[in-house]
């Protein structure tokens, strides 16, 4: 008990004026703005697919992009909430990425059923996953750097959501830039890797977000 009193004395002596961290919604808006600028730059360099405007007339494509955008927004908000020890007391909001991920799975199932006869897969396969990963590397580093400034108490979950956020940027870029409509290709080389990296984030979060 004497040790605790001594520690309290020491901590109190160290205390200086501290600027409270911003509200998680402000934080996530900043992250989204940064990510959107990065995505726009990537699209500017790589160029968008030639038939992008025409593709938006197709409901399933529009729904798929909307689901990806939903994942992007939801993971950003969730990552911001998870950066706070108490999730800013909005635990239920932190679960929203699961809903958007479920929506994406549903859209892909519908697209798969509608893909008759199946659109042939492009020759490349793994190359898409590599490009997706490369584009997501910078956002991953940035997210972990940003989140380490806070104090997450759900390290695995926070790591997974951070990776999903970073990969949602990559997935959006690839979908808007690559001229591919094969549902099997999209599932196999775009979305399954996103989910796999989301799972890998559980370990990464535990390792990198310790404080």
């Amino acid at each position, binding site marked *: 008990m004497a040790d605790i009193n001594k520690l309290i004395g020491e*901590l109190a002596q160290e205390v200086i004026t501290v600027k*409270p961290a911003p509200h998680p919604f402000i934080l996530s808006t900043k992250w989204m703005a940064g990510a959107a600028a990065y995505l726009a730059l990537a699209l500017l360099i790589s160029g968008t697919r030639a038939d992008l405007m025409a593709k938006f007339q197709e409901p399933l494509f529009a729904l798929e992009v909307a689901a990806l955008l939903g994942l992007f927004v939801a993971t950003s908000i969730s990552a911001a909430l998870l*950066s706070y*020890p108490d999730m800013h007391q909005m635990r239920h909001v932190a679960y929203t990425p699961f809903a958007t991920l479920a929506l994406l799975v549903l859209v892909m199932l519908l697209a798969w059923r509608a893909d008759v006869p199946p659109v042939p897969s492009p020759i490349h396969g793994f190359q898409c996953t590599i490009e997706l990963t490369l584009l997501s590397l910078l956002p991953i580093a940035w997210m972990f750097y940003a989140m380490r400034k*806070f*104090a997450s*108490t759900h390290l695995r979950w926070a790591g997974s959501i951070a990776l999903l956020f970073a990969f949602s940027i990559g997935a959006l870029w690839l979908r808007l830039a690559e001229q591919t409509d094969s549902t099997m290709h999209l599932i196999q080389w775009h979305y399954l890797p996103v989910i796999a990296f989301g799972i890998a984030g559980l370990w990464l979060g535990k390792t990198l977000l310790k404080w």
Partner: protein
Amino acid sequence: MTQSLAGDQRTYAELLQATTRLLRPYLSRRLNSATEVDDVMQEILISVHKARHTYDGKRPYKPWVFAIAKFRLHDHLRAHYADQLHHADDLAEIEEFLPDHVTESALSYESISAEVEKLPEKQATILRMMHQDGYTAKEVAEKIGMNESAVKVAAHRAYKILRQKLEE
């Protein structure tokens, strides 16, 4: 907390004192000894200090501080059980060869009982119960009011002492 964020040292010390009073019953219910409670409490206070910028004073303090307390408590328990598991692994290795060693060599429990008696009382009792009376570690734990891992660790230490003495 809002005043503490503004750098008021006295208020901050009072807040940490109040936090200690708030968390002590919570930790005491979950940990075995007062020393452990104090150790975890200190870790929590340091964490509260490190994370104080994530609290803005506009939402209730208790859920915030309990989130940190729970996080540090789980950290402590994970480390504690991992340590016990590590000891249990060591014992498993020893237990594999120990019965063979005893039966195959000229040594028996009876032949080393004089050495066993020289061990600290608790260790000697545990060995007597396990090797003379034939109780398992779990049964010994129940009989003498210790937990099973602690019995295994005590037995492990006793084996080490005995081995050293017999090798001399």
